């Protein structure tokens, strides 16, 4: 009997201690485009040494988990304590307001205030988190292929047509399978759409039907997929709004011109190395502008956390100026932190191509259109992007003419707006 009592007591103590350990756990859901997961792990290890009472668990997941599984967890009132997310605005009702929890709310407002509205419900002054990186969509050219083909790389004001023509010449000359590729993403497709004069936002703030600007570029885009100028692999390779990148084709030297964004720089720097020369080119021009899209990934606190104080401590640490600076320099990401930007960065790379590319993207930030700056904070942006990808890829696969795809895009968006009840 005494033995049984002793065992039960030991079991109870065990349970209590394990519960106590759980109380200090902070779980982060994180996806990586490059080396940022490893850098973050290193930074968090230092944090845990400074704060032995807080155990930070880093769950490295794929981007599709963040896009497809996290939203369901959030809807169920569950999920991690902190997450790295790109669909920030539409899910803002799930983010924790850190304003009363962080050590110095004014520091957050000053340094991350420009993007704060991207991740909080409309009309609030909530501090939901901060952007781990600011991204700018733009192009990359395989310089070696251009040089070998003897074709000049199009200049700053080159149009999409100029790039298509040059890329075709290079691909033909160098026997490369694809002249151009653009990620299977509504966000990426929206850069050229905007350059052709598109405006997604209606007078009431809800999505407007696709206009002539969008139609003009989409027609060109689908035509390029049909004639082989644009990689068919990326856009017809899936149904629905599944994300597909063409980065591997570019890394393998199979692609002359790749339209993606600044987040690819560390990836290319690591994987291409000295295999060939590549350059970032900014965004090609359309009749209206030469804009890409801005955006990025934000680190947000989830309001269903059991440990809001600990979460705030982790967020305060990761948002610290020296930490943001180190994170950005080691990951080659463009930071959002105003102080860090003002003092300048010393990117930790010997790769001159990566340095030049980062400078090119910083310069490209100046040519962003007003609408491109507004879309990351627009509630319906992801709804429009999803419908664009789904239907344009059907048109690209030859399942329906573009006119019908455009009609379907408008209908899909209207149905989503109606379903949302907003």
């Amino acid at each position: 009997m005494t033995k049984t009592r002793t065992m039960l007591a030991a079991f109870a103590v065990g349970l209590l201690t394990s519960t106590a350990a759980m109380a200090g756990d902070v779980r982060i859901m994180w996806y990586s485009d490059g080396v940022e997961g490893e850098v973050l792990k290193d930074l968090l290890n230092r944090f845990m040494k400074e704060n032995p009472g807080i155990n930070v668990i880093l769950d490295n997941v794929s981007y599709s988990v963040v896009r497809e599984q996290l939203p369901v967890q959030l809807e169920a009132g569950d999920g991690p304590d902190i997450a790295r997310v790109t669909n920030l605005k539409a899910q803002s009702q799930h983010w924790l307001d850190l304003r009363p929890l962080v050590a110095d709310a004014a520091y957050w407002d000053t340094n991350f205030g420009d993007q704060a509205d991207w991740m909080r419900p409309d009309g609030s002054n909530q501090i939901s988190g901060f952007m781990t990186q600011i991204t700018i969509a733009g192009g990359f050219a395989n310089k070696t292929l251009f040089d070998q083909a003897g074709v000049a790389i199009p200049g700053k004001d080159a149009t999409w047509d100029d790039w298509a023509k040059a890329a075709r010449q290079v691909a033909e000359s160098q026997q490369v399978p694809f002249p151009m590729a653009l990620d299977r993403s509504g966000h990426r497709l929206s850069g050229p759409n905007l350059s052709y004069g598109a405006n997604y936002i209606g007078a009431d703030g809800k999505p407007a039907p696709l206009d002539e600007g969008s139609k003009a570029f989409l027609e060109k885009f689908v035509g390029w997929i049909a004639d082989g100028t644009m990689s068919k692999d990326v856009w017809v390779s899936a149904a629905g709004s599944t994300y597909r990148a063409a980065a591997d084709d570019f890394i393998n030297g199979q692609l002359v011109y790749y339209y993606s964004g600044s987040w690819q720089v560390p990836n290319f720097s690591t994987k291409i190395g000295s295999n060939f020369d590549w350059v970032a080119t900014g965004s090609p021009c359309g009749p209206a502008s030469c804009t890409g899209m801005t955006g990025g990934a934000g680190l947000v606190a989830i309001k269903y956390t059991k440990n809001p104080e600990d979460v705030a401590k982790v967020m305060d640490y990761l948002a610290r100026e020296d930490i943001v600076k180190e994170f950005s320099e080691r990951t080659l990401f463009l930071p959002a932190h105003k102080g860090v930007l003002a003092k300048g960065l010393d990117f930790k790379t010997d790769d001159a191509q990566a340095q030049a590319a980062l400078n090119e993207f910083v310069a490209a930030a100046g040519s962003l259109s007003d609408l491109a700056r507004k879309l990351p904070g627009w509630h319906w942006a992801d709804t429009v992007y999803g419908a664009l990808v789904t239907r344009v890829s059907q048109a690209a696969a030859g399942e329906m003419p573009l006119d019908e795809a455009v009609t379907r895009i408008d209908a899909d968006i209207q149905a989503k707006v109606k379903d949302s009840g907003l």
Partner: protein
Amino acid sequence: MKAETPRPAGSGFGEAIMVPVRLAMGLVDAPLRWVQRKLGLGGMAAFFLLPNMLIFGIFVLLPFFINFAYSMTGGTALFLDDRTFVGTDQYARLFDCSNYIDPNSCTEDTFWTAVGNTAWFVVLQVTLMILFSLVTALILNRELMARSFWRAVFFFPVLLSPVVVGLIWKWILQRQGLLNFALYGFGFEPYTWLNDRNWAFAAAVGVSIWAHMGFYTLILLAGLQAIPKDLYEAAEMDGTRPARAFWRITLPLLMPNLLVVIVLVLIRAVQIFDEVYVLTGGGPGTSTLYLTQYIYETGFATQLRNPGLAAAASILMGMVLVVLTLIQLGLGRSSEKKGSRK
């Protein structure tokens, strides 16, 4: 005074084993007697069925009713309490078509595309799966060299996770995959198999057959081995040709197993999702988009999910599966009756 019955040798060990069993029986005996007194003999059947019915109720019936309730609601909220009752609107939206053969004439064109794709997939995959499984089982039933090895080879893919199956075949069939590498080695031009509608469809059918054929082959092989050998010997003595023996002896006696296989393959084919989702993602375009993927994408993967529409589509798919199961039960019973008449 009674004479003691001599104990058989080794009964001491048997007795020792029975001690804990008797002890356990003794422990449950008293409560069970009490329950039987309360419920009566007839009630005991229900009492013993209760645990199973509870599990069935919680994990099958309850989700079915919850799903049905979801199909009657609209909006993007996840919890039923936060959703709006819309009656049969979701079903009406799915069936809003001017021509069911042409998905583009439907409001939910993707649903009807998925229905059409699934129907074609079922017809092709089930036919080929039965054919290949039967042929493989017949071959493996013969006296072969290293027969156990070959049986293991055909069964091995069944042990693989569907995601692994999808990835393996993607690495083989993609533009820079093993197949193109081999073709290039033989002087042929590489081809983008997964970007061609017909080849992608064929790949989806082929891969699912490769992945599951071993299981059905095993069921048919068990059926073949249960056929008495003397029937074949008698047929051989009568000079029956092997083809006639197959049609007159093998196939009729294998029919119960074949029926089970047909229904299992049918149900599995209607539910196809995982390996094809990894292999083609539903593409190119929507040419390998099947019903389960449509439900998954509508309910979970798109921005502003529509759980109500996904639930309505899954109820419709569930009805198809119920019909298939009823057909299986009907056929099973009729073959039992035929068997008992003979």
